[in-house]
């Protein structure tokens, strides 16, 4: 018998996501992923100064803060032909790698860990054993018996006064398999990570003034460097960044990665579920010789199809035949009908809600069921995110990526194929953070080298004034955000935004199926997953969380006039 399991709200994500899964004989046989919030930022961007777009689009998402700002300034710089000074590029790289590290740690501990770690179970743990275990795989100096005793007492007192944010979790569910000591380590480090994450983002505050939502600037970075001035980025500021990087390095390599591997070793069965699509897309990231030279990016640009690592296909976001968006199952209309696919340049955004009148119980029976459009690359459904980044760079032969991936697979004693799963996706995020950590240190070192020789220019003002712009210009800004491939397309006319479009990671991963009934990542990855207790579908949550969904980003925007100029979608 088929049962339709509805999870809404899906929590511990950004935004408003609803999942309806069909479970037959204890296994998921079909799934529907629905974005249920839209804000209409596209209409708001039209007619504004392109130099302001970073601030507006940054507000698409406060969890993936900075990434839309970066995509936006890159799109304007691409349109106007602006080369950013190398020092500004390094500051941007430092900010983005910082974002990777912070975002992935938060995801692991605060958004994903409770799917694997039982928060109540540590009460049964022996703190001394927990300490011995933790010390066996980590040098973190807090992992003492006294520390774990203290955390256990904290949980005890907390549980006695109600569980607050931990209430009504699936505690005691048979799918939770960690021994009490590992659960205790997990909860302790959940609290440590919560305290640490506020530190590392001070790097954003140094260069961008605040976090969330630090400031960016078309043409460079807004902060000036002057080692002979107190009111600029000087040695005190750079020392602070250096210290924060050191702390982050310790947290990632002595806490996050060891915990990830420890938890993963108890859930190897999850290397069999949640693989989903067989296609992976990555725009490439971390320029080292300017944004116009993707061959010198740390992560390679390209696409892998059918999990065939022998071929990496080139990706061109300007080609009208490559990236297209469909609305066969989305709450929109196209003038050419529901089966048409449109490149973002030619996109239409004509919202048409056709779901049930709220309040409603289910979207079953509704052909259209989401505010997300459905992007495709050469008509292929693609997975984006840390796993896709690793796979594309691995297949491209990037040595540093290969080394990190191979050594981790060896530690876990699993083959490369294990990557194509819920467990693999969660592990890939950890490796993505570890690589970002290596590169963050490298970028900081490079920045200091430039400071030493006083090459500190952070801004290229050649095209700052709108009078220097052509009447018409168009550009694309690509970013590998923590959650995956993000692109902003801009058209400028007479100094104002004529068209602005975004196709973002969770639109790729969380969209409804296309007109050919090809599922996107969320839906595809749920098929075949067992669900032990349909009233407590922790298995659904595990796989959906492995993508780190971000729905505020993922939803397309609204043009009440139905003009054919603009469309937008968000990570």
């Amino acid at each position, binding site marked *: 018998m088929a049962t339709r399991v509805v999870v809404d709200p899906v929590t511990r994500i950004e935004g408003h996501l609803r999942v309806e899964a069909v479970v037959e004989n204890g296994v998921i046989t079909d799934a529907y992923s629905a974005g249920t919030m839209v804000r209409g930022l596209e209409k708001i961007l039209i007619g504004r100064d392109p130099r302001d777009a970073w601030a*507006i689009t940054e507000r698409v998402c*406060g969890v993936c803060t900075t990434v839309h700002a970066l995509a936006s300034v890159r799109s304007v710089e691409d349109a106007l032909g602006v080369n950013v000074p190398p020092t500004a590029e390094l500051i941007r790289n430092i900010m983005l790698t910082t974002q990777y590290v912070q975002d992935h740690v938060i995801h692991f501990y605060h958004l994903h860990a*409770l799917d694997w770690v039982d928060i109540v179970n540590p009460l049964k743990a022996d703190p001394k054993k927990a300490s011995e275990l933790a010390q066996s795989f980590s040098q973190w100096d807090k992992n003492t018996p006294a520390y774990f005793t203290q955390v256990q*007492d904290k949980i*005890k007192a907390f549980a006695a006064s109600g569980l607050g944010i931990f209430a009504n979790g699936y505690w005691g569910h048979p799918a939770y398999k960690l021994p009490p000591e590992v659960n205790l380590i997990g909860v302790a480090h959940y609290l440590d990570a919560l305290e640490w994450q506020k530190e590392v983002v001070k790097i954003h505050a140094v260069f961008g003034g605040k976090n*969330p939502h630090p400031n960016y600037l078309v043409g460079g970075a807004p902060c000036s460097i002057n080692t002979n001035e107190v009111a600029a980025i000087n040695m005190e500021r750079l020392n602070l960044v250096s210290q924060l990087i050191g702390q982050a390095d310790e947290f990632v390599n002595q806490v996050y990665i060891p915990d990830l591997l420890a938890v993963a070793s108890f859930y190897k069965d999850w290397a069999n579920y949640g693989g989903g699509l067989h296609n992976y897309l990555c725009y490439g990231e971390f320029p080292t010789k300017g944004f116009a030279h993707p061959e010198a990016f740390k992560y390679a640009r390209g696409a892998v199809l059918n999990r065939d690592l022998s071929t990496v296909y080139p990706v061109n976001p300007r080609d009208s035949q490559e990236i297209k968006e469909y609305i066969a199952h989305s709450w929109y209309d196209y003038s050419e009908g529901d089966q048409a696919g449109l490149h973002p340049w030619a996109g239409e955004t004509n919202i048409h809600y056709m779901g049930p009148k*709220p309040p409603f119980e289910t979207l079953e029976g509704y052909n259209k069921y989401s505010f997300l459009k459905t992007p495709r690359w050469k008509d292929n459904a693609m997975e984006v995110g840390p796993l896709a980044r690793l796979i594309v760079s691995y297949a491209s032969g990037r040595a540093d990526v290969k080394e990190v991936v191979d050594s981790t697979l060896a530690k876990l004693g699993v083959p490369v194929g294990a990557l194509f799963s819920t467990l693999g996706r969660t592990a890939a995020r950890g490796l993505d953070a570890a690589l970002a950590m290596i590169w963050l240190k490298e970028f900081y070192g490079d920045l200091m080298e430039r400071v030493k020789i006083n090459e500190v220019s952070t801004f290229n003002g050649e095209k700052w004034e709108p009078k220097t712009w052509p009447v018409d210009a168009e550009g694309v800004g690509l970013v590998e955000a923590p959650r995956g491939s993000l692109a902003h397309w801009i058209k400028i006319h007479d100094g104002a935004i004529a068209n602005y479009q975004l196709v973002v990671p969770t639109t790729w991963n969380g969209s409804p199926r296309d007109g050919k009934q090809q599922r996107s990542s969320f839906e595809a990855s749920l098929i075949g997953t067992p669900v032990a207790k349909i009233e407590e579908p922790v298995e659904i949550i595990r796989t959906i969380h492995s993508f780190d969904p971000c729905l505020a980003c993922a939803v397309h925007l609204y043009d009440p006039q139905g003009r054919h100029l603009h469309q937008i979608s968000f990570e």
Partner: protein
Amino acid sequence: MGGTIWQSMEQKGYSRREFLQFCAVAAAAAGLGKSAMAQVAEAFEKKEKPAVVWMHFQECTCCSESFIRSSHPIVADALLDVLSLNYTETLMAASGFQAEKSLSDTIANNKGKYIVLVEGAVPLKDEGVYCMVGGKTAEQILQTVARDAAAIVAWGSCASNGCVQAARPNPTGATPIAKLVSKPVINVPGCPPIADVMMGVVTHLLVLGEMPALDDQGRPKEFYGRRVHDTCYRRPNYDAGLFVEAWDDENARKGYCLYKMGCRGPVTYNACSVTKWNDGTSYPIQSGHGCIGCSEAGFWDNGPLYQHLASFPGFGVESTADTVGTVVGVATLAGVAAHAVVTNIRKHQVIAEVHTEDEKES
């Protein structure tokens, strides 16, 4: 939710002395003087951990992200010891049915005693279908949770004034919370608000058990009583007529005033230049970019970010100086250049100006 805050801290092994120190930190965060210590301690000792629910509507979750950046108290201590956060879609363990149960149980068991924190605006257009959670519209949910709330806090500019989705032409009819509920709402604007300000507002409510004093826009005077400009460390440069003229120019590298680069500090009421961001690390102006005015209602429609304020209130008094013949091409720039000349004349007028400036702004 049994146990007072002192009991829960005692169970954690805190000494009485440490508890009083914690109260001092909470009092500082809430803007209290040391004389209020006794009152704070008494409140902490007597009160149960209050039930709090955090709603998410049309937002980007930057408010939640900011909240967890709090440094005093750190958020883990707040969540474990100060309040009982029973519903927040960003952090709560439960999903779906179990999440909704956490919300409905909290409302049912704490009628008139729970606090509602709202992140996000509520879209009213087309019967509210542009934001739905659990098959219900944001407005349906808001009315349900607000009915029996003891207090409602609107986090950030979305909930306080609509923010980005309410910028022209406000396609989904995004509406601030205060316009939708019949109870007083504490507006804590900003995109996002400063973490330690958020914690300051929460602890003010919980520790003192009273609404903070609010201005006419429902903002706590404690944090929104002064303009960024008036407390900015670069203000002396403004007064001396020393301005950044272009990004990363020599003046930028000396940390001069960013007014000409579009800084909205002069028309923005917020704590940025005093409390600063991320545990006091910096604030936008300190890091070289002007204030974009993110805590002011309608700031997205207050002209392009990099166009400096032609209508900057307060320049009225210098209009005579403008006509005296400062040779500058653009009238608004003349205002800036002339400002330094007349600064001394106007200083004694500052207090009176605040009111007339407010009128001009509106």
